[in-house]
């Protein structure tokens, strides 16, 4: 987990459900397999929602954690 190369960053700060997952999915479509998307959100519901989204889409959630009132996700495109 040491050196994760972030391909792109998406800021969903200030957005509530369902926009973080909607925008994340849209951003993922533009990436290539193996790329990593960093997504930042402020919606506390984004943690369970992103976990559910990853399970449904099959993309790999490398990280989901709170950092100073913000939520940071790293998602690897798997297909």
């Amino acid at each position: 987990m040491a050196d994760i190369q972030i391909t792109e960053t998406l800021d969903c700060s200030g957005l509530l459900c369902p926009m973080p997952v909607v925008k994340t999915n849209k951003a993922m479509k533009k990436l290539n397999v193996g790329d990593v998307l960093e997504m930042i959100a402020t919606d506390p519901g984004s943690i369970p929602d992103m976990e559910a989204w990853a399970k449904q889409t099959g993309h790999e959630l490398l990280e989901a954690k709170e950092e100073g009132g913000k939520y940071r996700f790293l998602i690897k495109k798997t297909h």
Partner: protein
Amino acid sequence: MSEQDKRRRLAIIASKGSLDWAYPPFILATAAGAMDWEVAIFFTFYGLPLLKKKLDAAVSPLGNPAMPMKMPFGPLEKIDLPIPNLIMSTVPGFQQMTTALMKKTFKKKGVASIEELRDMAVEMDVRLIGCQMTMDVFGFKKEDFIDEAEIGGAATFLEFAADANVTLFI
């Protein structure tokens, strides 16, 4: 889930057209779309106007005693204002005010507008089916609706819903 797996499917009946009730079908449809599900919404009865080119959904506190009323700004922001809804909702202009306040509050909190969610649904190829029978009864024409709307009946919806993983009546 890989592309070749069968996609999950969500079928929704949207039967209510007030601003508050317009949210659940569009939120669920776009969330499902974001998970690459196949989605269809069948707009019937009072839900049908949600397909109109120009949306004008409103919300009324009448008969809605659980509706929290907080001012979205100013010194009253932190205070719950119980609305004596039976009396106030008969005051001319009160419904417009309630609608404007709800829109303002939602925007401030970061909730997308119904227009934005509907545009998103269109972009995700969510099937938006207008109920033909409701059109006939209330006098709507296909041209009243956004171009992406298709027209169908109960059988059209059921044919899609027959293979749905989740089916909701809202």
